[in-house]
């Protein structure tokens, strides 16, 4: 061993021992029992209904981008819930422990959580919310929507897509395992040097943190390669760059950021791993190490990551608002430019996360100015959305509620961000809960956009709309929670309350913390409203069957194909004639236009390799965390062997004959309710091409639709 490992270690189990399972912890032990019972119930249920084969064939081995997207979203929602429970525990602890005379229970001096446990909770909350909730939710929505918006049959690399999902899932399982086996890191989600060094954090918590980070970074990088390749190479005929829907543009810029920044994270965390496993001194105080180098390397990724999560959210807002304003997006080209400007500037601002490092006025000024520059393209976007709504025919659906809520939060978060970009102010509120409230505004802006787009695209994926009334109820409860938790938090920040306090010592903070508990209650109710919304919508799905254009006013290409989207996406790859193709066809009376000729198409085969490799990466992460070297080596070799064998085998795919395509398309058509077509007479002078011949969509060939036989 290269490092001086405190505590026992043996060659077979590494640091793993029965005493590492916290069965005496009064919070974790009952939770463990609940989880085990739930898992047993699920397994029993699946076995009872005989669904193992279905689960394996249709979901676990799938390479269909829509199903992978749905699984990403489920993963993200589960982790959003887990992260929320962490938040609830932190709020409860602070409300209980405030002031010098607060009583303690369950081993804590104040409140009910010991400092060590509290540290693990805020570290897990931050990491889970950003990397294992927001990121999978966004990647899931991108996965579903991008190929549909550009008229592709699947992603450029369907197998890589599945691999990305299962590696992300491995990261999720690893972070959940830290609940019940050993500890999690207590050094904050982004880590501080040198507290994460082995000498100061001798447990396995930091190791869990390292390998979870590495796995999710790997999964996201693979995904970003796939998205970029898909958008560059797989667009339908006629889908020129300036006809790309805004969400696709936003996703493209976000994934360029991801591809260029996630390697920084992997290097930074890899160097921490080298310090802890190999005994190097990158981030130690002595031996030539530099503490701040870690912070620098981390935020070199960390800030682009912030824009990686916010840009797709901007893209979602840019899809929802035009649809429910019945107008094209205002200032499309400026919107594209603003998106890329934000992506570009994202690389120049990372120092504002540690203005107080002490590098003096010149460096601070550069990063301060660069940070303020972000306000310009963001302002362009906000005005574009406002002008899109101006004199539009607004429909206040639940999705629109969420989009407007996101705009409002963006305003609050953006303006407080402008305050924080000024180093003088930043010195005053550094590490206070004011900063916490600011970035929660931004991340909640993303969450609002995600809920909006879940409601917006749900009918496209599942074929029926979600219940509007419950969607709005959830919106109001969630917004009440947001206001009640974060407005007092801004105020506490001004009162000097620092972040991560397991014991808020000043009794003046007590009323604010109590109000925040009310906010948490509203959040809990909003989760219940979400569950009720799902239940009611699934129960009444027959009444709310969606047509191809579920909202009647949709604009982009994905609304041309059937709802729910069949596995082949488009029976015949459409010819794109305009920027908002669905709206263009509707306005020209071409919505009911069907292809007159079908061709055989080529689709990728399912494979079990992706989930097996994902499982092996979990084993690798777990073995490395517990320093079980033989298991690490075996799982690493197995991963490499699986990769090579899969590559050598290749995927011949399968061909669906033209008659079969025609039959499936007619069936999907019949299953949908008749769309309400606009009353004005259709037809375009000179004729328009709906389905061009010679379209090269994954080996298919389509024929020209006849545009002139419309009634």
């Amino acid at each position, binding site marked *: 061993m290269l490092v001086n490992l405190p505590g026992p270690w043996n060659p077979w189990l590494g640091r793993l021992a029965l005493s590492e399972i916290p069965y005496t912890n009064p919070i974790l032990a009952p939770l463990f029992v609940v989880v085990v019972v739930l898992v047993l119930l699920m397994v029993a249920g699946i076995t009872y209904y005989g669904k193992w084969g279905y689960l394996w064939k249709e979901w676990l081995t799938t390479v269909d981008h829509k199903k992978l997207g749905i699984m990403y979203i489920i993963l993200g929602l589960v982790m959003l819930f887990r992260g929320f429970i962490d938040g609830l525990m932190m709020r409860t602890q602070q409300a209980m422990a405030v002031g010098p005379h607060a009583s303690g229970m369950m081993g804590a001096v104040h409140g009910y959580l010991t400092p060590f446990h509290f540290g693990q909770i805020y570290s897990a909350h931050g990491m889970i919310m950003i990397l294992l909730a927001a990121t999978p939710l966004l990647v899931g929505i991108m996965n579903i929507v991008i190929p549909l918006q550009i008229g592709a049959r699947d992603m450029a690399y369907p197998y890589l897509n599945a691999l990305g999902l299962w590696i992300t899932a491995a990261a999720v399982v690893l972070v959940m395992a830290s609940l019940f086996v050993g500890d999690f890191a207590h050094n904050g989600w982004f880590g501080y040097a040198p507290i994460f060094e082995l000498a100061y954090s001798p447990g396995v918590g930091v190791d869990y943190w390292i390998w979870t980070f590495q796995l999710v970074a790997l999964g996201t990088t693979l995904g970003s390669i796939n998205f970029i390749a898909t958008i560059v190479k797989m667009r339908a005929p006629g889908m020129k760059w300036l006809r790309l829907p805004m969400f696709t543009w936003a996703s493209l810029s976000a994934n360029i950021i991801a591809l260029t920044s996630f390697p920084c994270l992997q290097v930074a965390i890899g160097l921490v791993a080298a310090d802890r496993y190999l005994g190097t001194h990158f981030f130690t105080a002595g031996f030539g190490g530099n503490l701040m180098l870690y912070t620098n390397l981390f935020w070199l990724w960390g800030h682009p990551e912030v824009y990686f999560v916010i840009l797709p959210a901007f893209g979602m807002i840019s899809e929802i608002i035009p649809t429910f304003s019945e107008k094209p997006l205002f200032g499309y080209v400026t919107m594209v430019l603003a998106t890329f400007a934000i992506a570009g500037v994202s690389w*120049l601002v990372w120092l504002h996360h540690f203005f107080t490092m*002490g*590098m003096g006025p010149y460096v601070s000024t*550069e990063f301060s100015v660069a940070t303020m520059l972000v306000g310009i393209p963001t302002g362009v976007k906000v005005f574009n959305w406002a002008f899109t709504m101006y004199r539009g025919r607004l429909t206040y659906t639940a999705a629109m509620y969420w989009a407007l809520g996101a705009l409002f939060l963006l305003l609050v978060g953006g303006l407080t961000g402008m305050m924080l970009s000024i180093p003088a102010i930043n010195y005053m509120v550094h590490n206070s809960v004011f900063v916490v409230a600011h970035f929660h505004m931004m991340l909640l802006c993303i969450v609002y956009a995600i809920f909006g787009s879940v409601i917006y695209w749900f009918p496209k994926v599942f074929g029926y709309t979600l219940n509007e009334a419950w969607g709005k109820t959830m919106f109001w409860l969630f917004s009440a929670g947001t206001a009640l938790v974060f407005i007092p938090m801004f105020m506490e920040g001004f009162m000097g309350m620092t972040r991560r306090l397991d014991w808020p010592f000043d009794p003046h903070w007590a009323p604010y913390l109590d109000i925040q508990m009310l906010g948490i209650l509203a959040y809990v109710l909003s989760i219940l409203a979400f569950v009720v919304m799902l239940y009611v919508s699934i129960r009444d799905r027959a009444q709310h069957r969606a047509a191809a254009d579920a909202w009647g006013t949709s604009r982009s290409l994905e609304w041309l194909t059937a709802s729910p989207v069949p596995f082949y996406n488009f029976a015949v790859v459409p010819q794109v004639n305009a920027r908002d193709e669905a709206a263009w066809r509707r306005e020209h009376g071409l919505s009911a236009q069907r292809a007159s000729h079908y061709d055989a198409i080529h689709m990728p085969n399912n494979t079990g390799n992706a989930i097996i490799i994902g499982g092996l990466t979990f084993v690798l992460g777990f073995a490395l965390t517990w320093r079980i070297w033989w298991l690490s080596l075996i799982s690493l070799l197995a991963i490499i062997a699986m990769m090579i064998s899969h590559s050598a085998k290749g995927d011949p795919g399968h061909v669906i004959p033209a008659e079969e395509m025609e039959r499936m398309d007619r069936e999907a058509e019949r299953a949908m309710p008749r769309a309400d077509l606009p009353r004005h007479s259709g037809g375009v002078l000179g004729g328009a091409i709906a389905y061009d011949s010679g379209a090269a969509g994954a080996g298919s060939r389509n024929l020209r639709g006849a545009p002139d036989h419309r009634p």
Partner: protein
Amino acid sequence: MSHGQDNPLAHPEVQMANNRSYVTGFIVASLLMAAATVLVSGHLLPPFALLLAITGCAGLAIIAQVYFLLHMDLSEHSIWNTVALIMFIPLFVITIGLTWWMFSQLYLRTMPMIPGMPGMH
């Protein structure tokens, strides 16, 4: 797609494979790495010159690997790789350049050189 998907041997990456360039790239990169190692382990140069020398070796190794191993040039099939490489230059300048500036300013203020004391630089 610019090339057929059925025959992996028809991919340009495979077509460009060439034993001589792989071996050359490997030897050149190994020699540069060995040179850097010898310079550092033997303390053969004063500290600053050492820094410049190993930076130079690393730069040459990058060029050798990009050219001999990755076959990057302006031909039709590797133009995208080359574009990506060129796009990487501003990122490199930003990340490494700003970091260097930041830390030099930090050291100026937090690690003053005391006469007679071994410094960081």
